[in-house]
């Protein structure tokens, strides 16, 4: 009886086999060295400034103070369990805001400054009915994946994920639910269905059985035909249509790379998560949970080193169950200036992130340290509160092997600092020295004292 790779995989079942993993089989050249990873969380439409503001901490470049002596606000008090691994970065602003506040905010943070804003931003693909904001530069994650040697190696160069993608977009406008743009500034929309992501990442991982060898041979034969077909079609296409197939070929190559992963690892692959309907508020917590488990596993198996994750779109329609007064969804609630539900929503997201941080701390990495030590996590919102852009919430976690110290609150209030100054610092930590990111006029260089 034929055993397809997929059925083979399904047959593995929960915990019945210790599996393989590409990870560090490929790392024969560097036993005991763990990869460095970056995980970026976008927490849309948060928070409430007065309730986020920590007290104490260190005013960098000013009054000074002890970075480790600070207290959380009510909106981020749920970060407490992650405090030893965290740096709160306070006092960053968004600059040059125009056009749609959320759509422009997320693009400005991720691509650095300039966008085509507001009424001039008519997406050529969206025609007369689609409006919004267009980026003019790639996002930081894609630049780092391209330039950082530390991030190269895994079969999947970067992953774009979302906990919810609903948005009150203009028709055909996708920029509200995209946070990553490739080097050609093509939007990279996130995957929002954990079971499908699980299949994409893990279905090709299996032992070195005879069935697996046969399955790999089959996949390779099929792939050869598909690539041949793609090439034949490519030759017939006008130049402006070829990028579509370039992207398609890139996707096939990604799959091809996963096919040659060697079989070795001490990681036990769990069964696929149950199918949960995406973009349903009642499922939000479970969807995040499923994705967090997938991210942990993908990092452990070194399938990817770069993940951007939107909790929801830049126009969040999510209703977090159990939070009174949030029944219109987070974004409409921000229009209502409802302090309590917005504070609770922020605290809720901080809580899920803190739990993940603690879990990553408990997982042993290849170099004997924890997964968290080699993984830098960034969480930000594009707004300080409602639709205001001063004092946006920013927190960094983990990454001690990248030079980030925990247990700190650093303040840069009033210095004209932006997220670009965080990104340039992170870029340096990943071995890509950068003095400015995006529009040079809107950033001042890496934040002093953040790394090192």
């Amino acid at each position, binding site marked *: 009886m034929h055993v397809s790779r997929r059925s083979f995989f399904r047959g593995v079942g929960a915990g019945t086999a210790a599996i393989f993993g590409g990870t560090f089989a490929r790392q024969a050249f560097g036993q005991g060295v763990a990869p460095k990873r970056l995980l970026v969380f976008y927490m849309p439409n948060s928070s409430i400034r007065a309730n986020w503001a920590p007290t104490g901490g260190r005013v960098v470049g000013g009054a000074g103070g002890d970075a480790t002596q600070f207290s959380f606000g009510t909106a981020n008090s749920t970060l407490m369990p992650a405090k030893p691994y965290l740096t709160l970065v306070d006092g960053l602003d968004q600059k040059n805001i125009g056009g749609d506040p959320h759509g422009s905010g997320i693009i400005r943070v991720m691509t650095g400054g300039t966008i085509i804003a507001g*009424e001039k931003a008519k997406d050529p693909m969206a025609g007369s009915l689609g409006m919004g904001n267009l980026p003019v530069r790639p996002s930081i994650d894609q630049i780092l994946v391209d330039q950082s040697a530390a991030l190269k190696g895994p079969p999947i160069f970067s992953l774009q994920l979302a906990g919810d993608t609903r948005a009150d977009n203009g028709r*055909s406008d996708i920029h509200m639910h*995209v946070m990553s743009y490739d080097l050609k500034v093509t939007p990279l*929309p996130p995957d929002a269905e954990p079971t499908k992501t699980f299949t994409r990442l893990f279905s090709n991982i299996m032992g070195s059985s005879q069935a697996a060898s046969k399955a790999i041979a089959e996949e390779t034969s099929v792939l050869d*035909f598909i690539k041949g077909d793609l090439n034949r*079609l490519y030759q017939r296409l006008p130049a402006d249509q070829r990028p579509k197939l370039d992207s*398609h070929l890139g996707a096939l190559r990604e799959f091809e790379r996963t096919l040659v992963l060697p079989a070795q690892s001490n990681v036990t692959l769990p069964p696929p998560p149950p199918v949960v309907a995406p973009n349903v508020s009642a499922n939000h917590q479970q969807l995040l949970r499923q994705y967090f488990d997938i991210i942990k596993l993908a990092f452990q198996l070194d399938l990817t080193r770069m993940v951007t994750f939107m909790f929801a779109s830049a126009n969040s329609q999510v209703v977090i169950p159990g939070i009174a007064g949030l029944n219109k*969804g987070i974004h409409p609630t921000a229009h209502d200036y409802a302090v309590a539900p917005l504070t609770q929503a922020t605290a809720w997201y901080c809580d899920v992130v803190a739990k993940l941080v603690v879990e990553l701390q408990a997982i042993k990495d290849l170099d004997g340290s924890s997964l968290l030590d080699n993984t830098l996590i960034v969480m930000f919102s594009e707004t300080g509160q409602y639709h205001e852009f001063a004092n946006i919430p920013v927190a960094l976690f983990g990454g001690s092997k990248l030079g980030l110290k925990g247990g700190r609150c650093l303040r840069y209030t009033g210095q004209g600092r932006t997220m670009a100054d965080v990104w340039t610092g992170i870029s340096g930590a990943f071995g890509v020295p950068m003095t400015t990111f995006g529009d040079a006029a809107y950033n001042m260089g890496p934040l002093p004292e953040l790394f090192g």
Partner: protein
Amino acid sequence: MKASNFVLSSVLLAASSGCRGTVDNPGGPGVNPNGAAGAAGGGTGLTGGGGSPSPDAVCSPATAPRVWRLSDEQFSNAVSDLFPGITVPAVVTPGRTKGELLNVAERYPVDGALASSVRTSAEAVAADAVKDLPGLLKCQAGQADAACVGAFVDRFVPRAFRRPLDATERAALLALYTAGAKTASADGVRLLIDAVLQSPSFLYRTELGTAVVSGKPTALTPYELATNLSFLVLDSLPDVELWSKAQDGSIAQPQVFTQQAARLLQTPRGRDNLSAIFLKWLGLGAGITTELDATVYPEYDDSLRQSMLGESTRFISGLVEQNGTLADLMTSRKTFVDGRLATIYGVPYPAGSTGFVPTTLPSERAGILTQAGVLVGKSRGHEIVIRGKFVRRDLFCQNIPSPPPTVNIMQFDGSGTERQQSAKRVSDSVCGACHSLMDPLGVTFEKFDALARYKPTAADGTPVDSTGQLTGTDVDGPVASPVELAARLGLSATARACVSQNMLAYALGRELTPADQCEQARVATQVEALGSHLPDLIAAIVRSPTFATRTGGQ
């Protein structure tokens, strides 16, 4: 209503002036065909002057040669047509809103996630398809395996690829079969099917034409033409009869093409697909996804959502089947209710009935605007804005730009009733420019709650004020209810042109640009000339030479 007017207002582009100062502009908001936003310029000659464009005007094609990937739904439909009875695991394109009206051809390149989704589906279908290998291959007695598989390839693959196979492809497929068949013949066929369903030749429709001469329009090949027609009308592959017309090339003859288009529109699948397009236009393509507060609307459960969707589906299907008009869509009081909807609408539901029964709506309801599915679908967040924007943008095709950079929303603190908040938005010097186009339409729905129940009095017993105003259209005037609004929409040439504009965008797989003005006007005039019946919308589009030709490209 002169045609020139609705052309004008139906090609609105958000110009640099945004919504400002446009309220009293008879052409509608943001009219500035030569504005900075009009990438291709506005001067195609139909915005000035006047006089109706001829229904048979010959417009230059405005769509360049391209490949157009099947939508997620089309993938499922096409695979189902190739393998009837086999379950097709759904493919999901990341970033695309499920049930969205347009399958934008230049959006959503295949990424790792999508390729994985397609692979998973193709592998499952292929494994299922070979379970009954003799039934699939239909080998003749005594026929050798290889010959039989060759015949299967010749039968199956051209239909899947919607074009003849060339010798290289055929050889490659047979080689794939041979490689797989080392273990079992079924394995070989399975790999072959798996590969075909993941191939770009299956996943992309080509619109490359017969011979591209730079600068000169090119006619689609007979195969491309038949494929375009079938995906427009059936949302799937050509059926057997259409396929034969592609194979013998006769589909390129206008008479044959017209006859095939008319035939397909009359098939149950053609009618169902037309209904589905209307549901997508109304935002119901993925069902009713609005979330309501369960403490306020405890009865809002999945079965009620199914009832609501069921009504909209039956209402539109009924109109399509009876050759109803766009005015009927807006104003008809004849619909279908089940027990739960009857309660919401306050209409009798005959004792002993089950499921949906025909009903006539009370005077406060008419057409799609007061349908539960549509109203609930537009009950998110701030309803007055959402509902007003829906009417303005989706029913009049008048764009509402994003909030301008100077907007100060901090002055709106969320206090007061929805109506009071709306009044504040409309009277604000910056916000009012756009909100005066949305809110005065949205307020006319104020007597309907989020569950689409009629509530003419507020909790304190005072009558609800739902008086609004229609401006910037060809049917301006005071309106105080969705029924009054629907009556005006039923009379509006702008609204009729808007539906055909949406349909044209759907047919082209892209939003329209100024370069489409000629075709837009031609289709709208054609629809009017035919009587504005729902199937006329498709008929008017496929009659066009631009449907069958592409620009000279680069």
